[in-house]
């Protein structure tokens, strides 16, 4: 087929991009070449709208072994061990086909991690759905959860934490972000950089089919009415084959045969081969007749653009082919030598003895477009003036019931019970806590991980929202006793071609950057997902932050369950009474204006580090960070989990009691201590200039808010535990 501008535009390229391709090649590309350009130059693979801004993120640190740019980021957890981790989106496919979309999202991120030589040890996810009233929400939720479970459970990797939210801005575009952590020895890490000439290029894993052709292009476009027609672009997952691929790759990696390895993710064979060549500053020659195909008469175009799952590309040392083949035969996987590295710096494709594509690698990577898109700065909204009289009409118990049973606060047990969270025998903090925790097998160490997002704050003021997500991740890790090390981010936004959406992106990234720099909590990997919108309307800006921390002695891990009657409850950090953009404002006052709570990075760092110090000195019995729903929501969850009650004290400061209980000021934690330790604890906190107050005393069976208002723990449980089950049954 002859290529012209019209065909290029059908491939999602812009007119000037097509012109640039012709200039770079000094000729018109053929159809296969055009397909390759469109795959490499789309937003998903080229980061053309985001690159400029992502450069500003802090990515270095003492513990960082590998920052962004590889399959995943890597951090040092001492004793020669390292953690490989990354989060990635699979939003568009999951909306079109929730089970397969979510499943292959999980499969893809695990491959990114084991490509680097690491055995996956934990999965997390951040999933966001439309309004609970929307007709599609229930089925999408069910499908996504089953898909995530279906893949992770079969792989035998525990799903240890996650986040689920509902907001009508996701009605037509749900978000599915999957994160994986893997464990590797520091001296056995594998990279994707090709090296050496005439080295064999090996294809392993599943056969190539026609599924997922142009998946990456689909993920780089907005949705419209014709979305159902895109079903064939969704890949189909086979977790069993991925399990075989994992074991076979790790077996081969135990030796010294591999020069470089790269999974075939978005844009399949195209992006994997080109990335390896580009990083090694080499050329690559592939004979497409050798690629194992599932279907007959596949064209070079289809083979190069297929996104069939569970495939890897490996560059081997010469002479190691037989040894490698033996391993893949043992695991019943396809193995084919499909090409070699060359010094041409071109990607050369042969099919039926003819050259079917010949493109300089640098035109596809370094010369790919980069845009400085127009963006609009957001003003900090003015504070709402809430009349204090409103509070007099409010019954705290009714509000508490509404908040605890709110879809975004209620227990997500219905979800995480469908995920195997205990396989591998090292999960010491299950889903439902501040962070999931797994032991580093056979050691005293444990790794904590959490995934967070606050779309409402980011929507109200992107810069503050961006900072807030990072500090929330930081607090969640500290709440389980982990020292935060680094983050991965999944940046879900609307169209970069829309100035408002682009502004949200730019300022959220700026906020993330400021917070992670201040906290020395660098970004080591991530992914950008634009065009999360239906027609013209974008989703609320939703950066998801996956944080990872280390607990040196896992016996010092903290949970949020209240432990013992008569123990004291303190709140660390100052409560100013910030109600704007809180769950209380939105659900009780029906008010959506105003700024999100301010993020004070000094306080975050100081409060967090001081709490870690208390934990290290064994002074903390339980801890929980205060976030959505304020103090009362946080303490309710601690009561529910520990099956204990609390007698709350009247706050000494002057702010309104309702504001005190429901405000979402940042930088706060609730902790439980032994009353005998109060003196020492207050000494340490005062020395560190950390504000704290006594919040209450642990009692049996009920929460006493004041003399008139008491709620039994069973009532709290029923508010919190049943909502999602009832919703899914209705």
């Amino acid at each position, binding site marked *: 087929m002859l290529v012209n501008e019209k065909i290029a535009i059908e491939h999602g390229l812009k007119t000037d991009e097509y012109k640039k391709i012709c200039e770079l090649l000094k000729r018109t590309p053929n159809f296969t070449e055009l397909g390759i350009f469109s795959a490499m130059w789309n937003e998903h693979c080229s980061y053309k709208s985001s690159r400029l801004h992502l450069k500003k993120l802090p990515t270095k640190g003492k513990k960082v072994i590998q920052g962004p740019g590889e399959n995943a980021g890597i951090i040092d957890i001492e004793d020669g061990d390292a953690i490989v981790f990354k989060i990635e989106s699979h939003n568009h496919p999951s909306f079109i086909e929730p089970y397969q979309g979510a499943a292959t999202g999980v499969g893809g991120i695990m491959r990114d991690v084991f490509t680097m030589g690491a055995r996956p040890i934990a999965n997390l996810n951040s999933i966001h759905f439309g309004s609970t009233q929307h007709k599609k929400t229930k089925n999408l939720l069910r499908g996504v959860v089953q898909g995530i479970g279906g893949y992770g459970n079969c792989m*035998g990797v525990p799903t240890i934490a996650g986040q689920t939210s509902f907001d009508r801005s996701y009605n037509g575009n749900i978000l599915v972000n999957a994160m994986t952590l893997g464990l590797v020895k520091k001296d056995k890490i594998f990279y994707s950089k090709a090296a050496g000439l005439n080295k064999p290029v090996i294809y392993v894993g599943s056969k190539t089919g026609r599924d997922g052709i142009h998946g990456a292009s689909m993920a780089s476009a907005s949705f419209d009415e014709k979305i159902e027609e895109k079903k064939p672009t969704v890949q189909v997952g086979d977790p069993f084959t991925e399990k075989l691929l994992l074991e076979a790759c790790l077996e081969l990696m135990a030796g010294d045969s591999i020069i470089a390895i790269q999974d075939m993710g978005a844009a399949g064979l195209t992006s994997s081969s080109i990335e390896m060549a580009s990083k090694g500053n080499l050329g690559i020659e592939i004979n497409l007749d050798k690629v194992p195909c599932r279907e007959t008469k596949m064209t070079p175009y289809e083979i190069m653009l297929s996104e069939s799952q569970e495939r890897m590309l490996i560059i081997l040392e010469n002479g190691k082919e037989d040894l490698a083949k033996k391993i893949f035969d043992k695991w019943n996987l396809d193995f084919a030598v499909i090409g070699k590295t060359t010094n041409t710096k071109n990607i050369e494709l042969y099919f039926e003895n003819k050259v079917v594509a010949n493109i300089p690698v640098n035109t596809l990577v370094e010369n790919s477009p980069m845009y400085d898109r127009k963006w609009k700065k957001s003003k900090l909204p003015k504070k709402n003036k809430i009349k204090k009289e409103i509070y007099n009409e409010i019954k705290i118990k009714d509000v508490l019931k509404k908040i605890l049973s709110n879809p975004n606060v209620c227990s997500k047990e219905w979800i995480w019970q*469908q995920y195997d969270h*205990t396989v591998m025998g090292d999960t010491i903090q299950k889903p439902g806590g501040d962070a999931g925790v797994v032991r580093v097998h056979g050691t005293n160490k444990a790794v904590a991980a959490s995934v967070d997002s606050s779309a409402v704050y980011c929507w109200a003021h992107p810069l503050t929202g961006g900072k807030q997500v990072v500090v929330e991740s930081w607090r969640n890790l500290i709440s389980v006793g982990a020292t935060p090390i680094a983050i991965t981010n999944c940046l879900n936004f609307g169209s970069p071609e829309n100035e408002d959406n682009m502004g949200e992106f730019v300022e959220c990234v700026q906020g993330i950057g400021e917070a992670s720099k201040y906290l020395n909590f660098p970004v080591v990997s991530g992914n950008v997902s634009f065009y999360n919108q239906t027609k013209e309307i974008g989703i609320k800006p939703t950066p998801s932050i996956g944080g990872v921390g280390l607990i040196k002695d896992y016996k010092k891990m903290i949970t949020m369950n209240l432990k013992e009657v008569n123990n004291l409850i303190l709140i660390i950090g100052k409560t100013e009474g910030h109600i704007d953009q809180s769950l209380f404002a939105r659900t009780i006052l029906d008010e959506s204006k105003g700024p999100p709570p301010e993020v004070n990075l000094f306080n975050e760092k100081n409060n967090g580090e001081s709490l870690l110090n208390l934990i290290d000195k064994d002074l903390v019995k339980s801890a929980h960070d205060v976030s959505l729903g304020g103090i009362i929501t946080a303490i309710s969850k601690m009561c529910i989990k520990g099956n204990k009650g609390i007698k709350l004290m009247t706050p000494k400061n002057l702010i309104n009691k309702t504001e005190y209980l429901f405000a979402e000021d940042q930088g706060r934690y609730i902790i439980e201590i032994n009353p005998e330790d109060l003196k020492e604890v207050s000494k340490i906190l005062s020395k560190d200039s950390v504000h704290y107050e006594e919040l209450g005393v642990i009692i049996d069976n009920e929460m006493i808010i004041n003399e008139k208002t008491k709620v039994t723990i069973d009532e709290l449980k029923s508010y919190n535990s049943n909502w999602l089950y009832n919703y899914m049954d209705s």
Partner: protein
Amino acid sequence: MKSSVITFPGSNCDRDMDVALKKFGFNNKMVWHNDNELPKSDLVVLPGGFSYGDYLRCGSMASKSKIMQSVINFAKSGGLVLGICNGFQILVETGLVPGVLLRNKYLEFICKNVFVKLDNKDNPYFKNIDKDIFELHIAHNEGNYFCTDDQLKEIKDNNQVAIYYSNNKGQIDEISNPNGSIKNIAGIFNKEKNVLGMMPHPERMIDQSLSGEDGSIFFKNLIKNIK
């Protein structure tokens, strides 16, 4: 005491079982599904996982694998064979224990702690155990045990039920049944009581920091009985 854990290509609880067996004193060997012969063993374990992907009936392909012929012979000669989760599914497919395992009643994978009540201590697995109600962990999609009325009668007549899902007081009621299993059956023996298949994972409950420690009691007792 020597044990063998069979690794099918999609097994994923094989390492956990290896860790547990070694922790309680077994000299354990991992055996590949494509091998023909079992090493000399006092106990053979079929671990949890997805043996061959289980896209067909769970465990059906595994029951026909090379090593299973040796496992079946070993069981028939009186050797102890323990199948956990997918291992239980494989055992019913071989016919070593009666019945089938259907998809969970609510059509969802379930991962949580459950209580089980022992029904029968007159066997090598539970002899001398000083506890009747155990807190164990389940993680499965197809654990809904089913058999015909005739089979059920035979199972009862021969005391073949090993454990029932119960509440923490040992009451066997519908609310404690996580997956719809007939009569709350969570684990079952062959007639001779040397083969045990059960859905709960004792290997996930072997230390204080995990979901609980009742699995430790099971393994400690088992190795004592074998000695």
